């Protein structure tokens, strides 16, 4: 009963707050600039130099900018180029490109009044987020590893146990059934990918400092991950896998003068990482965007008077909480799906001539019974 009343009073407060705020400010801020929802959303989803401090708009934790300009390497803190300032480092001048530039929001080198994009390997918000995720994954996994080294065959508890059960969940549920005897060979990569994505997803849901970087909703991150899977699939791919791609079991006219099937197969091989990239990226980006939009609804509706805003606050906070909870689930599911698809793609690359071996076992009676090629 007590808890219920607390919840109700919180909701009431949410609903009333905009009214009070409107009272207090009166009409003086009525003429304030309109909220550019699109701008805010993309600003939050994108990358930036410096990590904004919560509740202090415009202030941010400076991060190092590392660029390779026309005359070599330059390193300086992002606070030097904040708020559109230019920074002169030796012979080079740098600034963050403004709204109208084609390199909007990126660091540019100004040579003779023109903006050039240097090679930019700055530790941006997203890069720092990556490092934080890497550190957390390493800590979590090495914690489990240390437990196993120290305690032998005892079952771990609490956090260690939770991580271990996730490991066995992925290993026994996905990797082992798919890759069978090769599971041990690829498990390190696949498990690393799973935990890395899971941690990045969850960190993305946290609004303030260690989290907040939209990592898996960034196409660069998912692209690199799927490139690794692509390389693993194709570089360690078996002879049989390559034969299936370049000389598949189809009528000769489909592959001889014009290699129709090989081309299709190669496209298939290339679309797999593309699908991986876009799936994770779009899912996570969508989740973040929905929450941002729901939050922004409050401010968009602010123009329609305090009562509407109050109602909208309650609705959008409720929906945001709901969406965040869904996103926690989605974080896990997407990490799982990425791992599962990577496992399946790698297992295609590990295909051996199963049916032929079997056929030999059946005294070559079943050689004609070709199973459809995987792909």
């Amino acid at each position, binding site marked *: 009963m007590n808890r219920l009343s607390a919840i109700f009073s919180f909701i009431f407060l949410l609903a009333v707050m905009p009214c009070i705020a409107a009272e207090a400010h009166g009409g003086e801020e009525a003429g304030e600039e309109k909220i550019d929802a699109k701008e805010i959303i993309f600003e939050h989803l994108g990358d930036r130099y410096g990590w904004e401090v919560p509740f202090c708009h415009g202030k941010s934790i400076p991060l190092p900018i590392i660029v390779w300009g026309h005359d070599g390497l330059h390193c300086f803190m992002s606070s030097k180029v904040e708020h559109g300032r230019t920074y002169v480092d030796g012979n080079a001048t740098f600034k963050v490109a403004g709204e109208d530039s084609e390199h909007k929001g990126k660091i540019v080198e100004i040579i003779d009044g023109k903006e050039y994009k240097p090679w930019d*390997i*700055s530790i941006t918000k997203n*890069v720092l987020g990556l490092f934080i995720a890497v550190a957390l994954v390493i800590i979590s996994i090495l914690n489990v590893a240390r437990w196993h080294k120290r305690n032998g065959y005892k079952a771990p508890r609490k956090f260690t146990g939770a991580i271990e059960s996730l490991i066995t969940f992925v290993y026994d549920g996905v990797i082992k059934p798919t890759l069978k005897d090769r599971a041990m060979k690829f498990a*390190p990569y696949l498990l690393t990918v799973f935990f890395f994505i899971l941690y990045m997803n969850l960190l993305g849901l946290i609004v303030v400092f260690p989290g907040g970087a939209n990592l898996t909703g960034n196409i660069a991150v998912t692209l690199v*991950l799927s490139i690794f899977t692509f390389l693993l699939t194709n570089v360690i791919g078996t002879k049989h896998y390559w034969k299936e791609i370049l000389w598949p079991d189809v009528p000769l006219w489909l592959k001889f003068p014009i290699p129709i099937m090989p081309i299709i197969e190669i496209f298939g091989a290339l679309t797999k990482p593309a699908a991986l990239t876009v799936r994770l990226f779009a899912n996570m980006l969508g989740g973040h965007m929905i929450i941002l939009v729901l939050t922004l609804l409050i401010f968009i509706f602010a123009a329609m008077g305090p009562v509407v805003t109050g109602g909208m606050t309650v609705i959008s906070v409720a929906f945001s909480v709901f969406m965040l909870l869904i996103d926690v689930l989605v974080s896990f599911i997407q990490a799982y799906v990425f791992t599962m698809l990577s496992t399946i793609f790698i297992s295609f690359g590990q295909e051996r001539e199963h049916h032929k071996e079997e056929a030999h076992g059946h005294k070559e009676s079943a050689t004609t019974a070709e199973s459809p090629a995987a792909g």
Partner: protein
Amino acid sequence: MELFKPDFGLIFWMFVAFAILFFVLWKWGWPAIMKGVEGRADLIDKGVEYAQNAKEQLDSARQQADSYIAEARKHQTEILREADRMKTQIIDEAREAAQKEARKVMEQAQLSIQQERKQAELQFRNEVSALAVDIATKVVRNEMADEKAQSRLVDSLLDDMEKQN
């Protein structure tokens, strides 16, 4: 769209970060965990198998023990029955023997009694006859002291003989 253009810096750092992460976990993380987990799974499997075997063995042992107990019980009743039988037999035998013995003793006793009696009778008769002879002698001596009496006797004897004839 900015969002769909992968940023070079981020790609670079992602490669670096993932390479570091993978290397560290590949070197120090996964092998230990995999070994530990597999080892524990094997241990649990073995434990379960062992427990099953132990249970089977225990069951069979219990069955065996039960059968042993049943057998022993059967044996016991048999022995008891045998003992009972033997007891009665012994008692019967003893009784029979005792009876036989008793009869023998009785017979002997009877025999000896008869003999004794016979002897006693014989002796008695002898004594009686001796006594009678004595008495008769004495009587005859007394009777036959005078002649008259002798002749009376002779007469009476003769009379008797006559009467008989």
